[in-house]
C-alpha cells in the first residue's frame, strides 16, 4: 500500500452552518502510525473535524479522503466500507441506551451478520476485558458511571478492529484515575498498531498519547507540529493556550 492509501486527508475544507463559518481552508493529514491531537478552545470546531472525516457532515467546499478514496460528494453507501476502517468514541459515549453493554459492543458484528452469536460473544468479552469492564456485560448504559461508559464506548470502537480510532474529548468529566485509565488504554491501543486522532483541550492527555498536534484558532489551522515544536512555538494563541495568563481572563 502507498502512503496515500494509508492515510486520512482533508484538503481545503470550508464548513459553515446556518450562515456561521466553522472552518476555513482547513487541511489535515493523518498518517497510519502517527497519533495526532487536535487542540483548540471550546467551540473552535474540533468535533466538527471528526464528523467531517466520518461523512456525518458534508463540507461546503474541499475534500476528505480515506485511504485514497475521496468520500466528499459520495453517497453514504458508497463509502461505508472505507468508513468501517474508522471507529469513534464520542464525548458522551453515545451508547445505545435500549441495548445492554454486550449488545452495544457487539453492535457492528451483529449488524454485519458474518459471525455466529457465540463468536461475537467471545469477541465482546475479550474487548470488555481489555477495557476492564467485563462484569458489566449485561448492564444497561444507564447503570454505568461516566468512566465506565467511556470504556464501553472504547470497547465498542475496538470490536470491529478498525485502523483508526477517533476520540472526542475522552477525558472530559473524569476523575484523575479515570483520566489515567483512558490514557493507558489509548497507549495500549497505539502499541497494538491503531492510529488515534483525538480532539481535546486536556494538554496532559494530549502530550501523553500523541506525536503530532494541530491547533485551531478562529476557524483556521494555526499550528501543526510535534510537542517540542509546539512548546517552542511563538504564535501568541498557541502560547496562551499552553500557558494562560491573567490577560486570558474572559477573552
Amino acid at each position, binding site marked *: 500500500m502507498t502512503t496515500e492509501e494509508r492515510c486520512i486527508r482533508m484538503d481545503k475544507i470550508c464548513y459553515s452552518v446556518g450562515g456561521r463559518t466553522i472552518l476555513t481552508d482547513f487541511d489535515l493529514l493523518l498518517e497510519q502510525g502517527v497519533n495526532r491531537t487536535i487542540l483548540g478552545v471550546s467551540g473552535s470546531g474540533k468535533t466538527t473535524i471528526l*464528523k467531517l472525516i*466520518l461523512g*456525518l457532515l458534508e463540507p461546503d467546499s474541499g475534500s476528505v479522503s480515506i485511504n485514497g478514496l475521496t468520500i466528499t460528494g459520495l453517497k*453514504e*453507501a458508497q463509502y*461505508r466500507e472505507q*468508513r*468501517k476502517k*474508522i*471507529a*469513534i468514541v*464520542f*464525548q*458522551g459515549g*453515545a*451508547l*445505545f*441506551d435500549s441495548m445492554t453493554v454486550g449488545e452495544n459492543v457487539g*453492535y*457492528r458484528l451483529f*449488524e*454485519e*451478520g458474518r459471525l455466529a452469536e457465540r463468536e461475537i460473544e467471545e469477541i465482546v468479552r475479550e474487548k470488555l476485558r481489555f477495557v476492564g469492564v467485563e462484569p458489566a456485560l449485561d448492564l444497561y448504559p444507564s447503570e454505568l458511571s461516566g468512566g465506565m461508559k467511556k470504556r464501553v464506548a472504547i470497547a465498542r470502537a475496538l470490536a*470491529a478492529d478498525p485502523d483508526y480510532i477517533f476520540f472526542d474529548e475522552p477525558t472530559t468529566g473524569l476523575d484523575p484515575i479515570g483520566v489515567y485509565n483512558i490514557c493507558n488504554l489509548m497507549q495500549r491501543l497505539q502499541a497494538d498498531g491503531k492510529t488515534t486522532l483525538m480532539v481535546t483541550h486536556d494538554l496532559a492527555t494530549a502530550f501523553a498519547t500523541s506525536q503530532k498536534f494541530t491547533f485551531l484558532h478562529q476557524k483556521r489551522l494555526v499550528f501543526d507540529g510535534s510537542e517540542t515544536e509546539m512548546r517552542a512555538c511563538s504564535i501568541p494563541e498557541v502560547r496562551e493556550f499552553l500557558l494562560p495568563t491573567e490577560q486570558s481572563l474572559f477573552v
Partner: protein
Amino acid sequence: MGIAIIDRLLIRFFADLQNFCTLSCRAAARIFRKPGYYRDFAIQFDKLGFGSLFICFLTGLFTGMVMALQFIIQLKPFAATSYVGGMVAVTMIKELGPVLASLMVAGRVGSAITAELGTMMVTEQVDAMRVEGTDIIQRLVTPRLKAMLLAMPLLTILTDVVSLLGGYIIAAGYGINPTMYLSAFTQFIVPLDYLEGLVKPLVFGGLIAMTGCYVGLGTGGGAEGVGSAAKKAVVASSIMILMCDFFIAKIIVVFR
C-alpha cells in the same frame, strides 16, 4: 420586508415537505428489503400498537355512547330511533373511528417516536449507528412505519367495535330493540364504507410514524429541543390527519 419573510417561510415549508416525502419514500421502499429488523418491528408494534389499546378502547366506548345518546335525542321526535345503530355505525366506521383513534394515537405515539429519536440525535447515538455502518432509515424509521401501518387499522377496528358496543348499551338503556339496533347496520353500511374505514387508518398510521421520525431525526438543541420537537410532531401529525381525512373522503365519494 413582509414579502421576504413570507418568501423564506414558503421556501422552508416546501423544503420540509420535500424532505418529508423523500424520507417517506425511502422508508417505504425498505419495507421488504433485508435486513428486516424483525425484533425492532416487534418491539415497536408492542410499544406503539398494544400500548395504545386502552386509550382506543376508552375513545371508542365513550364516543359510541355519546353518539347513540345524541342520535336518540334527534331521532325520537320522528319515531326513527330504530336507525340509531346504523347511524352510529356509519359515523364511527367511516369517520370518527379512524380520525379519533388516529388523533389519540398521534398524541401518544407520535410524541414518543419523536422524543426517542430526538434523544438519540442529541446524544449522538444516531451518529454512532451511522459510523457503525447502519442504514438509519432501515433500522430506525422502517420498523416504526411497519408497526404503525399494521397497528393503526387494527386499533381502528377495535375502536369501531367498542363504539358500536357503547352505542348498543345506551340504545338498550333507552329501550331500543337490540335486533333493530344491529339490523340497521346493514341498511346503512355498504362495502365501500368498510374500505374507507380501513384505508384511512392505514394512511394516518403512516403519517403518524413518518412525522414522528422526520421531526425526531431533525432534532437538535438538547432537552429543550426534544420537548419542542415532540410538540411539533403531535401538532403536525394531527393537522395532517384532519386534512388527509377530507381528501380521502373526497376521493372515495368519486367511486360511489
